[in-house]
């Protein structure tokens, strides 16, 4: 197994999380926003797994499994919303949602 410093795994998780955050902030396409949220959730799971490997305990991997199921639920609802959004607004640009009423 790799013997890497504890911090490097957390650095990797932080960099991936922030790339996902920039994606959510910059991109206006609903599919890209959902993909960026997936990146952020994955980075959070990576941080848990790194911490679990640090103390050689299974708890980090258990938390990753919970994050995984949460991401699956989120993406199912999110993509159903994307289909509905496209049907109503005829685009995937999330700025169009600012003219939503009620």
């Amino acid at each position: 197994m790799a013997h890497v410093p504890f911090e490097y795994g957390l650095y990797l998780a932080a960099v991936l999380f922030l790339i996902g955050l920039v994606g959510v902030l910059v991109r206006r396409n609903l599919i890209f926003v959902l993909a960026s949220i997936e990146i952020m959730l994955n980075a959070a799971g990576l941080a848990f797994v790194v911490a679990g490997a640090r103390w050689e305990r299974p708890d980090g991997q258990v938390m990753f499994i919970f994050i995984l199921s949460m991401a699956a639920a989120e993406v199912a609802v999110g993509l159903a919303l994307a289909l509905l959004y496209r049907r109503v607004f005829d685009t995937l640009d999330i700025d169009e949602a600012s003219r939503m009423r009620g």
Partner: protein
Amino acid sequence: MTVAFYIAGAVAVIATLLVVTRRSTIHALLYLVVSLFAVAVVFYTLGAPFVAALEVIVYAGAIIVLFLFTVMLLNIGGEAGPDARRRLRPASWIGPGVLAAVLLVGLVAIIASGANARVGGRAVEPREVGVALYGPYAIGVELASTLLLAALIGARHLGQRRREPDGR
């Protein structure tokens, strides 16, 4: 194996950057698959083979396929609409980019101030994960199943075609 960690980490960061900057939705999703595979390799090198397999099966196998199906249903394989041309100029991403970079500096400072330790001494076997999952974390499994059921019903509700009152 230590080298594998650094290579996979670099691949993950580069592929994730490409995901966020691509114009074409399909290209971005394919880079996202590469990024998830790289993170799976990182998991394996850190001694977590079970979640490495789960990452490949659930993330790359199921979630990305769901994305691809949606993209095909929406028929947006080419450029991602006005988004791609208008939004990807530096003027639109420099602000969030700088703010995120500042945040990264803060995170790095916090992590670097901690104790030095190394990870990956011993692989945590799937058996241990299963014992923990159905022992102390059993209530979490129940909550996750409830969440997945709620998501199933929600996606079913949102996805059904209904007659709009105003005829749309």
